[in-house]
């Protein structure tokens, strides 16, 4: 395709709607004048009227007469001496066809005419894939279909564009350059850019959360099977703790013998967690992994493979964490960004853990106050299964006066497969709007999702849901800091991940009152009041609540 046809093609793609709509109404002569005007702005070569018509014919030919619908229908095959004698119109332009042609032209022309798009990096497709684009189009219908499907399949998922990519090419080249800022495609990109840019307040909130959250040491897990193979003979396993211990001398000996890639493994052992298969006399490796792994009760006789955890030897991560964590107190005191906070949170000390052992269905909720920022509840929903704890019927649960606990704030409710809908319903009845749903992806010792064990009725379950209800419109919520997916390993039956407390802390901010309903002793923690019937007695430090509680209790 020659350069002029290419220009015409680009022009048609950018302006196709405006050209067919009034006032131009697809008149070929008017289109020509528009084109000339746009060329002049960009200082491109002149295109004569006859050349322009020829270009249109070319394009239509390439698209097998699908690019334009004309009036009269043979308009493009007629000859016009000059634009003032041409009254034919193009009634519609197939944008998709033009775009396809443009894409193909770009791919075939790109390596030659590098100056066409100097800023955008050449297409990231590897050689093997671009080869498909250069294949001649077969004549046979079946083969055509095969090629089409192949093309559709091979296109790799296009990554979402980053903000920098969006910005590229949006600045006008000079004062005369209307094209860059007004063409349709560019205007769409400007809008996308605007939508993709985060508000300053959001960025600040995220930064604040970062400064105030302690860093917990974090170690990546090694995925190299060679390392695991090599380490099997170098570690000893302690069944009491499930940890492996590396024999440093043996490792050094092995490395001195020049086994494997020395640097690689010694570095990896220092930085990453390794899961080492424990091969016992009864272990049959062909069976694969034990479904229970570290929670298996018959570990000494189980024939499936179990693993021991080898911690990294280096503690760089822990040191970095300590340093950051020391500065948190300061970050709390020096708070320049106080959006959503009444005052410096450091001046409000966190309340210690409080708990009340009681029958939740019988407790008078008015004694607890109604200013909780957040409530979390994990009711033991009835299911058709025998569990070692008593469950609550749906109607008993609905009877509880949850509506009395908050003027405004969040209510997080753990639900099971059957009760997602019931839970939504209950939250609505208690005065909340369900605004989100957190998914806990349950993992095992090896940080793999749980995928065996007939954990659900129709499909296996590897996740649990936490419904998020919102009452009122609290101004103090920190939004969009954590993702709605939480990855954590399973523990004892029905015990929920502790990560949720960190997420809550970031959502409602420090120093706020939080309530946990149906909590057990391991749920109690500073800032939280926990109620439930499996707690060790009652421990209250807030004066008002304690007074009200003992007044009621003594009656």
């Amino acid at each position, binding site marked *: 395709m020659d350069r002029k046809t290419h220009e015409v093609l680009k022009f048609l793609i950018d302006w196709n709607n405006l050209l067919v709509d009034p006032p131009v109404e697809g008149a070929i002569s008017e289109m020509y004048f528009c084109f000339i005007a746009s060329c002049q702005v960009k200082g491109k070569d002149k295109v004569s009227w006859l050349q322009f018509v020829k270009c249109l014919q070319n394009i239509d030919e390439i698209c097998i007469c699908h690019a334009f619908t004309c009036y009269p229908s043979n308009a493009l095959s007629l000859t016009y001496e000059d634009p003032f004698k041409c009254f034919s119109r193009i009634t519609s332009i197939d944008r998709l066809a033009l775009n396809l042609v443009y894409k193909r032209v770009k791919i075939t022309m790109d390596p030659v005419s590098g100056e066409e798009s100097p800023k955008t990096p050449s297409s990231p497709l590897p050689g093997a894939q671009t080869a498909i684009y250069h294949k001649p189009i077969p004549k046979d219908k079946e083969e055509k279909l095969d090629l089409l499907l192949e093309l559709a399949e091979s296109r790799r998922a296009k*990554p*979402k564009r980053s903000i920098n990519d969006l910005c590229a090419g949006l600045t006008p080249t000079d004062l005369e350059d209307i094209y860059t800022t007004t063409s349709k495609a560019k205007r769409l990109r400007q809008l996308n850019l605007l939508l993709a840019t985060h508000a300053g307040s959001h960025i600040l909130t995220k930064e604040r959360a970062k400064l105030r959250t302690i860093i917990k040491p974090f170690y990546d897990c090694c995925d190299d099977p060679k390392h695991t193979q090599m380490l099997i003979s170098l570690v000893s396993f302690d069944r009491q703790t499930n940890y492996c211990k590396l024999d440093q001398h043996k490792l050094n000996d092995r490395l001195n013998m020049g086994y494997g890639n020395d640097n690689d493994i010694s570095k990896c052992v220092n930085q990453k967690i390794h899961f080492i298969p424990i091969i016992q006399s009864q272990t049959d490796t062909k069976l694969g992994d034990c479904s229970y792994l570290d929670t298996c009760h018959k570990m000494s006789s189980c024939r499936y493979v179990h693993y021991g955890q080898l911690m990294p030897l280096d503690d760089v991560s822990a040191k970095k964490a*300590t340093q950051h964590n020391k500065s948190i107190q300061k970050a709390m005191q020096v708070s320049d960004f106080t959006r959503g906070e009444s005052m410096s949170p450091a001046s409000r000390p966190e309340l*210690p853990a409080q708990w009340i052992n009681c029958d939740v269905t019988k407790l008078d909720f008015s004694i607890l106050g109604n200013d909780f920022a957040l409530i979390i509840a994990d009711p033991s929903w009835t299911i058709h299964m025998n569990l070692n704890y008593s469950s609550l019927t749906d109607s008993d649960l609905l009877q509880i006066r949850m509506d009395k606990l908050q003027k405004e704030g969040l209510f997080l409710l753990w639900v099971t497969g059957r009760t997602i809908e019931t839970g*939504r319903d209950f939250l609505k009845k208690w005065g909340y709007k369900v605004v989100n749903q957190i998914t806990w*992806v349950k993992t095992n010792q090896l940080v793999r999702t749980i995928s065996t064990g007939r954990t659900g009725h129709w*499909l296996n379950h590897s996740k649990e849901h936490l419904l998020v209800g919102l009452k009122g419109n609290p101004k103090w919520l920190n939004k969009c800091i*954590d*993702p709605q997916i939480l990855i954590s390993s399973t523990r004892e039956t029905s015990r929920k991940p502790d990560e949720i407390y960190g997420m809550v802390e970031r959502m409602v901010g420090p120093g706020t009152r939080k309530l946990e309903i149906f909590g057990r002793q391991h749920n109690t923690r500073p800032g939280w009041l926990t109620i439930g019937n499996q707690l060790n007695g009652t421990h209250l430090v807030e004066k008002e609540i304690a007074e009200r509680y003992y007044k009621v209790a003594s009656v």
Partner: protein
Amino acid sequence: MNNTSYVKPIPSQAGYSYLSSLQNWQNSNHYSHQSQSRQPGDGHKLVAARASTKDSYTKPSKSSAPLAPLNALQTANRTAKHNHNGKQNNDHKSTVACYKNDYSNHYIHSGVLPVKYVRNASQPVEGYPKLQKLVKLKEQQVSNFATKAYGSRVKPEKMVDTLNKWIYEDNLQFDVIMIGALSENQLLYPLVSQLPIDKLCAKPGFLFIWASTQKISELSKLLSNTNTWTKKFRRSEELVFVPVDKNSPYYPTDSLIPEEQLLEQMQWHCWMCITGTVRRSSDKNLIHCNINTDLSIENETTRNSAVPSQIYQVAENFSTSTKRLHIIPSKTGLDHPVKLRPGWVILSPDVLLDNFDPNKYKQEISVLGPNIPLDNEIEQLRPKTPV
């Protein structure tokens, strides 16, 4: 002691159980912070510190416990101390847990999404040879008994007419129907409630219907509405699909403003509904349960299409029917081309091919048979309900 002075506001009576429990606690040997210097009014902090050591929730400034196990020995000591401290927690078994990463905490500081660390995302049944074999056999069998890939390109406003024609003129019925795609603009309620799904779906039949977290309330409104076709379907599983990073074409950014979302949107929901009666123990010619899980994470097999291939696979592995229909009721945009899949008829305004012919399809089905036949090896391998 300071502790008693803190709770002084309440008249101290012997009957107050919390006081006695406090004193008990003071005398007990959980008290591992003896060395910490105490100042007046420090009482409640001590309670807090105690609770935090117990739950491995460490407040940096107040706890002297090491933040992370540096080696196995040290951790062993620490865990042992935990058990000792937590002897009052006799409500749960004393299982010993190794050091676990907190991926949510890590996300705040590194920006790497927690899902990125799931180690079996690309091979969900890793470590289970039996299951791996089963999944492979099922895949082969499903592709052996699949119709050609069909597409029917129909504008959203013509969809109801097209479906009615299929039902009343061509006598078509499907056993597996999927509705929607991973796109926010699926105009769920108004159009979907009009679709004649109850006539189109055989009994027993299976429905898979997509929604974003924002649209899920609309979906539950739809399924609880007794005036539409949905009254014949009951919701039985909730599938979730999670993209693995923010550049993924499946990451739901369309129309999302961070200032209005409580949490960062990540997931797509797909409800699995059943009409008619199927029993998981006896209807082995119709359904195979517990092969897949209700969670799929984006990986190399996902393909760039309107629906991740993993979820098509869940439907194919679950129902043995060969008649599958996917209705995408509105445009999905350039980033999600609607690709074809063997074994499925895809009805969409954007589907790549428009090659569906009801008569040819019926002919193909009559050759294939309405269900994939039983296979002895699969029967042996698949998880079954104990009788």
